């Protein structure tokens, strides 16, 4: 027995029942036995025509009579359906369905075939801002999000909704319809997941492919190795060297990134946003000083700072101060300073210069934003709710936890953040190892001549490599064999402020125009200040 379970989620009036009707009409053509489980009584009812069919059975659940594993199991045993469609209210979380399906019997007999999330464009903003976590969780778990009543809102707003959904769930499909009545045609076209079979075995397929490729690759590798150097002159020593360099960067950067994610998790779990906001005085000038200081007191690295800064702006901290905070915190962070001192042993002046130059750039950019203020809001709406994508903070219950449960939350959050941030570090370390071993050194030499080119090269490298500021000093250290200290300083000052991974995050939070402007100002000021530094002071 293999019962497919399709979940249709959405708020009252989002058109769930209409969608199910459309699916059933189409379904009734085929020979499937279908059970519909409604966890909500909506305005619409299942159509008579559908209900009289011999193979469709409908059951209603609600607040007084919640859906339990037992009752679902009984239904399945009794009616032996091919498919169960669960209509889920937007207020209830996906966890409720999961809990039910985790039942021993149901686990054996069912598989979750699809999750469809219905969203009403005209009320999307209100829901996202006020209903928070369950709603977001539904979106994050769905295979397809259907946006209906798209005609009611402006194009820009619609784009924002789309972007928000993509930010929550990268891999879901989006379908846009004007009215719930359009479902029928969509179902007829075979677009809806209820029709098209979307296997949940995709995961294992992918995994097997990956494993297979890896094993096969290793096989070829060992054959080559066995044949030895006389048949095929393959030089693996370069690869080996690259891997050694790559691993060595990771080995020394991981401890610092771990310390970083632990500190940030502790802040996230134990410190309320309000206490950070209270820290910023309303006076613009004083708030600059606070911005710089708070970087020391709230040590977040560049990977975690952007959502924090955005939250500050929303809570009423002046934008220039928030920008200064965003740019300076990753550099004045004590962990970053410590790792810089470690990366350049015996030369604490490097860390000192890094902090000073970083502050100079951060303050200049902040002042620039103060003197040439932005018109209107620079922040896209409603994104703070899921600024933390770790999936643990999303649930409000975590905030109310005490004692050991909080410790657990810290570790889980740290783990999630490690994976979130670590991939950029690994990619950065990989590119940097490749550059070191593969690129002809004469080539690098070309870029390290003069005073402008090496600085620009290092700044671009910092931007591209996107290494977390808690560990970038180690990567910067490796460049000192080829580049002057002044240009390596460019790497360490610019990297924490702006890089590819931060740019991606910025675009998700701020308006495009502001982000582009900000990037240009940061690059401009960094270059000017560092050029001045390396030519006149070093």
């Amino acid at each position, binding site marked *: *027995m*293999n019962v497919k379970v399709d979940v249709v989620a959405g708020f009252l009036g989002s058109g769930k029942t209409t969608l199910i009707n459309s699916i059933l009409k189409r379904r009734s053509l085929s020979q499937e036995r279908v059970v519909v489980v409604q966890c909500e009584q909506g305005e619409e009812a299942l159509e008579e025509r559908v209900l009289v069919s011999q193979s469709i059975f409908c059951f209603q659940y609600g607040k007084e009579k919640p859906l339990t594993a037992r009752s679902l199991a009984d239904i399945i045993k009794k009616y032996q359906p091919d498919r169960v469609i669960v209509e889920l209210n937007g207020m209830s979380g996906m966890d409720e369905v*999961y809990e039910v*399906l*985790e039942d021993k019997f149901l*686990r054996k007999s069912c*598989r*979750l075939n699809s*999750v469809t999330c219905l969203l009403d464009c005209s009320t999307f903003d209100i829901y996202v801002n006020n209903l928070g976590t369950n709603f977001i969780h539904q979106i994050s*778990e769905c295979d397809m999000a259907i946006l209906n009543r798209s005609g009611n809102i402006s194009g820009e707003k619609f784009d924002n909704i789309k972007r928000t959904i993509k930010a929550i769930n990268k891999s879901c499909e989006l379908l846009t319809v004007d009215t719930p009545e359009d479902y029928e045609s969509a179902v007829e076209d075979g677009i809806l997941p209820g029709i098209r079979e979307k296997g*949940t*075995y995709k*995961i*294992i397929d*992918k995994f097997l492919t*990956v494993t297979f490729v*890896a094993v096969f690759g290793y096989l070829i590798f060992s054959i080559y190795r066995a044949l030895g150097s006389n048949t095929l002159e393959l030089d693996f*020593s370069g*690869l*080996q*060297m690259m*891997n*050694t*360099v*790559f*691993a*060595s960067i*990771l*080995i*020394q950067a*991981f*401890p610092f990134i*771990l310390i970083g994610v632990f500190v940030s998790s502790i802040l996230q779990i134990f410190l309320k946003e309000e206490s950070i906001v209270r820290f910023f005085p309303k006076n613009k000038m004083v708030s600059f000083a606070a911005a710089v200081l708070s970087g020391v007191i709230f040590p977040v690295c560049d990977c975690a700072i952007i959502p924090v800064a955005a939250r500050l702006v929303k809570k009423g901290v002046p934008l220039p101060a928030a920008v200064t905070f965003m740019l300076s915190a990753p550099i004045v962070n004590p962990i970053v300073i410590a790792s810089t001192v*470690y990366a350049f*042993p*015996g030369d*604490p002046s490097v860390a000192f210069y890094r902090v000073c130059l970083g502050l100079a750039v951060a303050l200049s950019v902040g002042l620039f934003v103060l003197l040439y203020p932005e018109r209107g809001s620079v922040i896209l709406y409603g994104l703070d709710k899921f600024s933390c994508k770790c999936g643990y903070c999303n649930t409000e219950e975590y905030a109310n936890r005490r004692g050991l449960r909080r410790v*657990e939350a810290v*570790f*889980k959050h*740290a*783990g999630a953040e490690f*994976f979130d941030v670590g*991939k950029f570090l*690994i*990619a950065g370390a*990989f590119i940097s*190892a490749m550059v*070191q*071993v593969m690129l*002809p*050194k004469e080539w*690098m*030499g070309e870029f390290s001549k003069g005073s402008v080119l090496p600085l620009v090269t290092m700044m671009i490298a910092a931007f591209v490599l996107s290494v977390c500021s808690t560990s970038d000093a*180690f*990567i910067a*250290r*490796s460049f*000192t*064999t080829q580049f002057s200290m002044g240009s390596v300083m460019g790497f360490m000052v610019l990297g924490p402020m702006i890089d590819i991974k931060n740019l991606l995050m910025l675009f998700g939070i701020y308006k495009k125009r502001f982000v582009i402007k900000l990037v240009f100002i940061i690059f401009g000021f960094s270059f000017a200040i560092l050029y001045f530094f390396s030519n006149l002071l070093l």
Partner: protein
Amino acid sequence: MQQIKLWALNMDAVLRMVILVGFALFFFDIVFTEKAQLYVHPRIIPYVKFSIAAFIMIALFLMGDVFKTRRKTNLLPYLIFIIPLIAAFFIPARPMESKDISAVGINISQKLSSNLTAMDEEMRPLEDESMMAPETEDTVEEAVDDAKQTPIPKPEKIAMDEKTFLTWLEELYSKPEEYMGTKIEIKGFVFRQKDLGKDQFITARFMMSCCTADAQAVGLLCKYEGTSKLKSDTWLKVTGRLGKTMYGGQQVPFINVEKIEKTDKPQNEYVYPY
């Protein structure tokens, strides 16, 4: 029903645990087989141990999530973690060879000085009355700390081994004239560079300031008639007398080679400053 119900497991949690434990094992392996020294400076090792503990702790806390179903699993981000892990286990660490850096060349004078002068400044406050020339094994530990202070009593013969290599190098480069004519014994590998004369080579060792990524060759210039017969990267024990010469626009010490012996590769080819 033999199908595996993968969705019943939280693949996110499973993969995360596998990766965390994998890294912990890899770190554990390199720390306890002392392979770690091929990757990083020994002073990083306590931090590596911390990472092992942190990885294991996070993995333990994740265990509770394994049976909590979450359907959406995007494999790609985890692949980024798995690839270096597999590579780290299957591709053993290789010590550097001169060809890995030959093109960049050892900046024997400038780079070394700037590196070691920095250390010089830091060491100075640790001034100590009891100073000894780094001659015997017993005094070596102290010597690393103290050798920076002036003046070092001029020894009869300078012996540069693992522990005294960098200390002496710095001393010789900072005042080549003072040691003119002193007998010296040095162990290192043959390193060649384009701008060297036909009878010149460098007895070098790799210095790791932090990790393999920043390893660079450092050493002493040698003048030897039979240079052409020497193979790059062979390990030698070179004995000779010190002199000074111009190289790269600077006064540098060099060895007038008297005797060359082939020797085995030392267990750890790197030398670590500080």
